[in-house]
């Protein structure tokens, strides 16, 4: 074999070593790709696709264009200064006739109703007084029969609803709307900003309560001998084995005015009147803290388990009071766990729906309640998606902030 240093090293069968290496690496890469492919496909189908659809739905505005394609096409290029000309009215009449036959007038009626609340009746009225297919002067006939079609604001509303994409759902989610002049104004009757604020506040309080309760417990679990801590860990995880709905219902039983807690307190003579513990904020806090506590305990426990006891001992031997040693030496080492636990709890709390719905009053409902409301009751996918998207964006922002914080505190070069 040629062994001069300048020649490319060859493997036994004469193929250059580099080529062989590349081949081996490629087949290795393909094999690893094949291994993760099922997960990748699953993630795309169950995660990426639904979320993209959700984000798209928040700005999607194809309902009117799909239902009344001729009118929308005819209106294209309208200057917006005068009532549209005859061809638009002909197209309108044709579209409405088609819709009537198909029995699908409901969709455009609902969509136009979002723009001007009276638009729905305008459509139905027009439907009743439609001119014959071969009629002349359709514009005059229609405007005579339904005078609203002679008003510019109805046509402007129609034009807004006809665009393929709209910001109206996202704007409505933050209590804004586009007025008839095309300006963004505050909608006084809407309260989504308050509801978002409430959602963040409730999640924050729940996270803080979880942290305060979980920290000592996780510490205790981490210092106990394994036989005892394993048993207690099962107790911590026990609630996971029960349905969320059952746990929430159980809290109603416990907390209601004739329930176990009020009954017990009254029997002990501590209170005279039953405390209002359920169907208000208190009930929401209690049950959410209970349900989310394990999500705080587990990350804290896993971090604390990895901190040997000799650090605090060393700090004490160096002259620090045990409390100071705990605060200065132990707590900083658990920051990663605190961050992970808080983030997990907070993000989970942001999306809570069932618990506030069952245990809260009208003023304790969170964003998810309204997402469900728009999805199940009014079938307003646009609003549901817009609220959901905003919640998603807020969560992602939090995650980025957390990442930055952890990056800054974690620069100590720990292994």
């Amino acid at each position: 074999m040629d062994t001069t240093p300048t020649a490319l090293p060859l493997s036994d069968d004469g193929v250059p070593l580099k080529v062989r290496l590349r081949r081996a690496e490629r087949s290795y890469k393909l094999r690893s790709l094949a291994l993760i492919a099922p997960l990748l496909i699953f993630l795309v189908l169950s995660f990426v696709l639904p979320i993209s659809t959700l984000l798209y739905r928040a700005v999607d505005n194809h309902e009117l264009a799909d239902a009344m394609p001729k009118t929308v096409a005819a209106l294209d290029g309208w200057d917006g200064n005068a009532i549209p000309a005859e061809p638009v009215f002909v197209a309108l009449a044709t579209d409405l006739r088609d819709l009537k036959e198909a029995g699908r007038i409901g969709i455009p009626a609902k969509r136009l109703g979002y723009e001007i609340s009276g638009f729905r009746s305008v459509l139905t009225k027009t439907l009743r007084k439609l001119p014959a297919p071969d009629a002349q002067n359709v514009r005059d006939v229609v405007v005579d029969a339904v005078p609203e079609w002679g008003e510019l604001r109805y046509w402007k509303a129609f034009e807004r609803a006809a665009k393929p994409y709209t910001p109206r759902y996202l704007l409505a989610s933050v209590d804004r709307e586009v007025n008839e002049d095309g300006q963004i104004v505050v909608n006084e009757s809407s309260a989504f900003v308050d509801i978002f604020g409430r959602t963040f506040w409730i999640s924050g309080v729940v996270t803080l309560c979880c942290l305060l309760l979980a920290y000592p417990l996780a510490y205790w679990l981490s210092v106990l001998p394994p036989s005892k801590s394993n048993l207690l860990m099962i107790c911590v995880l026990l609630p996971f084995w029960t349905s969320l709905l059952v746990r929430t219902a159980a809290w109603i039983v416990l907390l209601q005015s004739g329930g176990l807690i009020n009954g017990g307190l009254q029997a002990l003579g501590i209170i005279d009147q039953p405390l209002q513990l359920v169907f208000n904020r208190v009930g929401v806090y209690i049950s959410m803290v209970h349900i989310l506590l394990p999500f705080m305990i587990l990350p804290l426990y896993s971090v604390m388990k990895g901190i040997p006891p000799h650090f605090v001992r060393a700090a004490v031997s160096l002259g620090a009071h045990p409390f100071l040693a705990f605060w200065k030496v132990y707590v900083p080492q658990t920051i990663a766990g605190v961050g992970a636990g808080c983030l997990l709890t907070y993000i989970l709390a942001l999306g809570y729906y069932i618990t506030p719905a069952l245990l809260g009053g009208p003023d304790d409902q969170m964003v998810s309640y309204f997402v469900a409301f728009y999805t199940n009751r009014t079938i307003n996918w646009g609003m549901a998606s817009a609220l959901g998207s905003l919640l998603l964006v807020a969560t992602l922002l939090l995650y980025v902030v957390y990442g930055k914080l952890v990056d800054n505190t974690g620069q100590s070069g720990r292994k």
Partner: protein
Amino acid sequence: MEQSGGADVLVSFRNVQKSYDGESLVVKNLNLDIGRGEFLTLLGPSGSGKTTSLMMLAGFETPTRGEILLDGAELHRLPPYKRNIGMVFQNYALFPHMTVAENLAFPLAVRKLAKDEIARKVQRALDMVKLGSLAGRYPAQMSGGQQQRVALARALVFEPKLVLMDEPLGALDKQLREHMQYEIKHLHDELGLTVVYVTHDQSEALTMSDRVAVFNDGIIQQIDTPVALYEHPVNSFVAHFIGENNRLSGTVAALDGRRATVRLSDGTTVQARAVGVDTAGRPTSCSIRPERVRLHSFDVQADNVLMGRILEFIFLGDHVRLRLDVAGSTDFTVKVPISQVDSAWKTGETIRVGWDADDLRALDPVAA
């Protein structure tokens, strides 16, 4: 070299006992004085009570009975953070979220020293362990030896009255360990520290200490200078724990002052120094160092001369080790410098084995 520290005692244990379960004692009636400026090592196998004794001194364990005095004051009533005792832990216990400088500043900051004074002392301590340039590093970015020095500097930076070291070199490799032994000893001499050092490594104990306390079974078996410990063990445990010793068991045939006549198990009688025996007729275990035995093919000048058959011959460069069958013991080891080895000594040969009566110590019997 004999420093019992009687004149200037810094620490004393008085009748200290410690039990964890209320049934058995881990430390049984410990009485120990540690002199100012002394380097005392607590040596013993694991579970012998040496670490427990150190922890009681540090304040992480409380004596079940008895008292510990530091400078005449009752130490056992003081919480550990008020004791002003520096401690070097087995795994260093450097705070991972603090830099080296912050680690060293910690004991000074909790004592509320001024900022510039802290900076000055930290720098001095770092220079002392030759790590002046690494002040900004985090512990995880340093080697084991460097971490060990930081731990040492942190235990010294607040100028404690007493420094405790709990197997501080256990995690280092052999070469580094020997180097650090030298450095610790050097710091001890230079700064006049009082050091209590716990180890299970006898060579570490013998190299560094002024005195070594050999622990076993919760009791100090012997406390003495390294030389005395090696040359004059007072019982069988110490004789076999420190260095190598040959063991010959037998019965005391006669006793005359410090001279004992011992009948070995095969019937041979030998002369020995009586250390752990007081009555004739009692069983005894005699011990002798391998390097104290003399071998000769024909004749040997010694108080005791026996015949031995060579079972094994191991060449070790500057000396050879021979395993012999002597007086019923098949594990009798002899070390001979290479210059005195006779070429006729081969496996299976029978030669003369001799030693002086004073080198064979008749000690307490050992259960076989």
